[in-house]
């Protein structure tokens, strides 16, 4: 069969967000992949430079619908470091609890999506049902299911009452039992093993070379987790393990994520049981001194980095967000070569892509044929509309 171009996206049932792959396939084998990102530039970085710190946090939460707490915490953590504000231990614990609950609902969601990609809808229905328990806990604690709005510069917005803590603790055993069940299923369910094992393999060297982060890298044996290697919040005080795997395929990534689910339940339990007393926030100054900070955070999908430059006012001069999906895309393009057409959805899903967080405006210079990320201030007015170009 001659080579055919299979267009996947920006509208395709396997992708819930806009991205375009041009898969050049020879029969059912993939020869090469052309990736076209950035359908959905939202101008959040620019908008973040126009608002003061109090108003930036709700905006940054909306970078992502799944890891909303991650973005807000990464930013708040960076600004607090610039300001020299130390947030109270209770606030740190509450942030950790929300962060780990978020990781749990993200990984449960991912497990369902991965199962759906191989047509195993039963697991999809089950994990999404169990995810509701996590969502309910989050809603009880913060009032919201998705955008929790828990962070403030200098602490958290609302305290946890004893009733909330007890309700959360009562849900944990159910979740632990279900997660144990999923751990068993991942290791023994033939239909998953047959589709996950040996698919989209990436060695440790390749993972390092292509800069993979998070569970994707850890599944290839890269023993790196920001929570341990650049500790923040309450992570140093809580017992937990970094989960790694040496397989490097989709199966390994599944094992890492399911392992992390279990670790998250333990972190949440430990934090809830040892929640220190005291205030939940301190008064933060309005303005931040001139400075630059590179704030790192282990989001559910991997290392999230916020670069913040302040200039002594109450606004950031530059906010640059490197979402984990951006770091993982190159590894996808590499993993897909020589794989089966049928494995595209599951390999793409294996990095847990979050596309709208990754979209950036690209400036294309047609004369020189170069492409660049938009410079700060390029867009002029934030409402100004530019269209994506092709070189």
């Amino acid at each position, binding site marked *: 069969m001659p080579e055919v171009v299979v*267009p996947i996206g920006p509208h395709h049932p396997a992708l819930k967000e806009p991205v375009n792959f041009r898969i050049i396939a020879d029969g059912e084998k993939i020869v090469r992949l052309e990736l076209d990102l950035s359908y959905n530039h939202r101008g959040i970085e620019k908008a973040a430079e126009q608002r003061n710190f109090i108003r930036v946090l709700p905006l940054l939460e909306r970078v992502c619908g799944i890891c909303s707490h991650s973005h807000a915490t990464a930013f708040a953590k960076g600004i607090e470091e610039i300001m020299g504000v130390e947030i109270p231990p209770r606030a740190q614990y509450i942030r950790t609890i929300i962060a780990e609950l978020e990781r749990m609902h993200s990984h449960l969601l991912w497990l369902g999506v991965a199962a759906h990609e191989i047509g195993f*809808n039963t697991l999809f229905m089950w994990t999404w049902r169990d995810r509701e328990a996590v969502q309910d806990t989050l809603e009880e604690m913060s009032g919201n299911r998705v955008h929790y709005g828990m962070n403030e510069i200098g602490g958290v917005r609302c305290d946890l009452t004893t009733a909330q803590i007890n309700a959360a603790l009562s849900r944990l055993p159910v979740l632990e039992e279900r997660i144990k069940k999923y751990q068993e299923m991942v290791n023994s369910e033939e*239909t998953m093993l047959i589709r996950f094992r040996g698919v989209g393999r990436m060695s440790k060297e390749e993972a390092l070379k292509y800069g993979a982060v998070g569970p994707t890298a850890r599944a290839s044996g890269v023993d790196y987790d920001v929570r341990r290697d650049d500790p923040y919040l309450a992570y140093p005080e809580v017992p937990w393990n970094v989960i790694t795997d040496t397989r490097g395929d989709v199966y390994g990534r599944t094992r890492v994520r399911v392992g992390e689910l279990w670790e998250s339940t333990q972190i949440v339990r430990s934090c809830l049981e040892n929640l220190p007393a005291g205030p939940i926030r301190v008064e933060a100054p309005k303005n931040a001194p001139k400075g630059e900070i590179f704030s790192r955070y282990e989001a559910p999908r991997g290392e999230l980095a916020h670069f913040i430059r302040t200039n002594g006012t109450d606004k950031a001069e530059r906010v640059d967000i490197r979402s984990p999906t951006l770091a993982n895309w190159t590894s996808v393009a590499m993993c897909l070569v020589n794989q089966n057409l*049928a494995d595209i959805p599951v390999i793409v899903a294996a990095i847990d892509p979050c596309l709208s967080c990754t979209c950036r405006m690209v400036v294309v210079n047609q004369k020189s044929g170069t492409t660049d990320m938009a410079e700060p201030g390029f867009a002029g007015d934030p409402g100004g509309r530019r269209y994506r170009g092709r070189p």
Partner: protein
Amino acid sequence: MIDPVFILIYIFVFPGFLFLFAYALFLSYLDRKIAARMQQRVGPPFYQPFADLIKMLGKEVINPHGVDWRIFDAIPVVALAAVMTAFLYVPVTGASPLAFSGDLIVVLYLMTLPTIALFLLGWLSRNIFSAIGGIRAVTQLFIYEVPFFLALLTPAIMAGSWSISEIVLWQQHNLWLVFLQPIGFIVALIGLQAKLERTPFDIPEAETEVVAGPWTELTGRRLALMHLTTEVSLVVGSTLIAALFLGGPLLPWTLSPAWLNGACGFGLFLVKTLAVLLVLSSITVATGRLRIDQLNDIGWKYLASAALVQVGIVLVINYLWVIP
């Protein structure tokens, strides 16, 4: 000579087309409901497949650019007609009045036509997803068809007849063939699952890979008819398996009056087809989708070998145990 009015009623009303449609939609509902309950969902109300059918029949038919709409219109009709015809030869309340020696071959042939129709639809759609889906459908056909046919022909070898009704009669006098040929029964069930393109064999229409495969460009009544074809195939397939392996609608003894015999036969038909459906639904719920190369391995290495072993065993049994 059979009364022509009876034949007409048999073909068009009961247990012919009218009953067939109702039962096909009912089985489709049960299938969805069973799957939903196993997946901890609520599932659709009982009229949902019927509502879907009516809705899709009423929707606009869109012709893809550059596609010959006459052929596109004709293919779903041919596929549906094929499986509806197949249903006339399988026993429902008793032996079909239209039965003739060799009707098993005809039924198998007619049940293959929807897959060919899907391939043609995919090929004619001028859509890359449809084309890939169509090629997958026909590749899959070559993989499951041989074990499926072998498995369904073993009852014929054992009973010494190519007629479904005679195989059922043979089972009435002897044993159900599922006890004599368990391997063949399992292969036949798996083959039927593959023929109906249900998980784990929904490779041609894998939603996350090729959108809807050959179904992608189908709209309105074409889509409705193709869905109906699949649902009718489910009825024909489960009836066929019930007849060949589970003794069909016949009781081991004859009841009088005749209507009571027929009613009991019909009851047995319902119970047996529902049992087959339950197995098929469980397979659907318990598995994910295979890849076409994995299916190739499994189909030829295990299914085909198992079916051949079954044929060998049947030949040995027939040789040793001379059937009266």
